[in-house]
């Protein structure tokens, strides 16, 4: 049992972080950046070239042959840098198509076949034939759209959705549309009964949320060290210090549970649903709470678009809703079998 990163894992994280700091700094969203749409998809081919889109796929499928643990570590960095969550469409889409649509696989892994996300608005019916109302996330230029709920995962064409209309997004750096599926046939469908993709989807969303929780903790601590009031750094006051400590506790709890959930999947142990659901609950809550407290620690500047703090709370809300909100995660948590031992 060891929760520490191996040397190889540390190298992967460091090189990915260097790349993202250089190519995808969070500052890319500062005004006067375009307020509609998201150009992150132009970065997918670069990630594909480096193997990050198939990091946990076997080499025989064109992947790198690593595990859920390395994939989790990559998503933590994606979260830190607020990569468009549409990246989930590629990672999960690759895992879905590896068996069902191998003809699509190579293009996905190279980042040349963007797959966006659809998130249910209320109850939907998923299967070979899909019905329901959805939000399409960063789907403007995507040919394909992925849905992944506790019932199963489906890959559809964007053109399968009808009545597609633009809506202003709460997370304004993402594009958001409403769309309807009424009897559309999924190009790929994998139900939850055999090798469900859902625990992996929960894990990656959670890892991304850990990235948010860590980034906001670091921003708040950095600000508390430098911002002076009453002639002292504000971080010397217990009121601020304890807010920062709370953020550190939440981030650590989320990190550890996400590692646990990743290792359960990487080693094909029992309890994947239990640990991934726990991870989503703990990590999303950490992302929401840390993002909110980061704004508070920053004071007035935190409320502006000139600081990056607001981007993180908005993204945290997207993660909370993505493929099952807190209310639904709690139901799943209560229903999961307790992995004894």
């Amino acid at each position, binding site marked *: 049992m060891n929760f520490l990163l191996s040397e190889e894992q540390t190298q992967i994280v460091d090189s990915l972080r260097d790349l993202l700091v250089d190519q995808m700094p969070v500052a890319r969203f500062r005004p006067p950046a375009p307020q509609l749409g998201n150009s992150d998809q132009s970065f997918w081919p670069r990630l594909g070239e480096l193997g990050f889109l198939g990091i946990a796929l076997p080499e025989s499928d064109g992947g790198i042959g690593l595990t859920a643990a390395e994939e989790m570590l990559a998503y933590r960095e994606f979260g830190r840098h607020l990569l468009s969550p549409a990246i989930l469409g590629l990672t999960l889409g690759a895992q879905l198509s590896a068996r069902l649509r191998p003809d699509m696989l190579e293009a996905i892994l190279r980042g040349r076949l963007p797959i966006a996300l659809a998130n249910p608005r209320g109850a939907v019916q998923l299967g070979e034939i899909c019905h329901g109302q959805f939000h399409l996330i960063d789907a403007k230029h995507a040919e394909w759209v992925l849905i992944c709920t506790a019932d199963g995962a489906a890959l559809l064409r964007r053109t399968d959705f009808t009545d597609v209309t633009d809506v202003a997004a709460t997370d304004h750096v993402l594009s958001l549309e409403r769309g309807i599926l009424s009897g559309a046939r999924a190009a790929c469908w994998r139900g939850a009964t055999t090798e469900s993709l859902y625990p992996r989807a929960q894990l990656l969303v959670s890892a991304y949320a850990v990235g948010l929780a860590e980034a906001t903790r670091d921003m708040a601590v950095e600000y508390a060290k430098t911002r002076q009031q009453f002639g002292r750094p504000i971080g010397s006051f217990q009121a601020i210090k304890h807010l920062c400590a709370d953020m550190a506790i939440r981030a650590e709890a989320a990190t550890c549970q996400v590692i646990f959930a990743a290792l359960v999947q990487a080693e094909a142990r029992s309890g994947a649903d239990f640990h991934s659901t726990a991870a989503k609950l*703990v990590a999303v809550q950490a992302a929401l709470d840390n993002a909110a407290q980061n704004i508070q620690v920053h004071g007035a500047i935190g409320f502006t678009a000139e600081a990056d703090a607001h981007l993180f709370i908005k993204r945290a809300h997207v993660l909370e809703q993505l493929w099952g909100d807190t209310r639904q995660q709690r139901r799943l948590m*209560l229903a999961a079998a307790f992995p004894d031992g």
Partner: protein
Amino acid sequence: MDLQFSPEDVRFRQEARAWLHDNVPRERRPHAGEAMRAFDTAWQRRQFEGGWAGVSWPKEYGGLGLPLIRQLIWHEEYARADAPDNHLCFVALNHAGPTLIARGSEAQKSHHLPKILRGEVIWCQGFSEPNAGSDLASLRTQARIEGEHLVVNGSKIWTSHGHLSDWQELLVRTDPEAPRHKGISWVICDMELPGITLRPIEIMTSPNQVHFVQCFYDDVRIPLANVVGAINDGWNVAMSTLGFERGTAQVRDQIRYAYLVEKMIAEAQRRLGSDCALADDVIGARLAQIRADMAAARAMTYMVMSRAQAGIQDSQSSLMRAMVGETQQRARRLALDILGPDGLENREEDDWVYFYLRSFSITIAAGTSQIQRNIIGERVLGLPR
């Protein structure tokens, strides 16, 4: 990064599980007085005779000399078997013993460690004072050197089970002129010495529950040979003790609480099931959340263990301690709420109401939640004092 255990570790786990299955006392643990002492020492002795005491303690003092991971496995199996926690042995096994191993003289180690493992002696802690709680370094119990003795005067408080103990790990001020962290000594005190008097203190759980004592020292003469580490180096010695308190023994508690939550879900199902589906009730939502938080708390314990195995010494474990304690306290409150109106009955000393009342100590003992947050802020995050 892995969740794997070596074949030797797996064999150790199987053997521990089998032994515990056959040997865990099935009778109820008494909650007070000599009966409790007799129960706890007998159970410790049984573990020693079975060859399971002091898993990671050195062999020459009666331990098994095994790596920390085996200690973790032992604690996991111990909790899994629902073995009674021998609280009276806690200080000896988790503070005093490890401190002696780290800092004690050869004579101190060979005299005390085997007795601790055999369950022959009970130790208590003499750190806090009426005016030195969170600010421990302000302690004033004084010890002047006279020939081959320390002569101690003052008072200690919140000493758990002091009235049932043989030995005390005692922090005294040996140099009142030195800076406050540099004038303290850590000394082994025989609780039978003349000049020690005890005042029992009842706790909030139920009437007549004596858990703490206040100790008064009136010219108590302790041999200088009982000082652990150097004179005036007691703060450093004590810090190594607190480190152990925050270490492996946490795991046992973690798993116990994970099982408690499972029992709480079953009980809530039984009690509320006729009203509405648990999943639709606010109790169900809270149970789901606590189940997730408990899993995360355990994962944090694994992280602390991973860092300890790698020889990393830092204050990161304070993150785990804060999360674990507060999650446990929240679980106890939820257990009370599941009982509904029956929560008004404090029937037995091992039921959910008793432990709810007891849970108020979790965020106070061994460093309050607020002190933990100071430590996290300053030593983990590097915020200014």
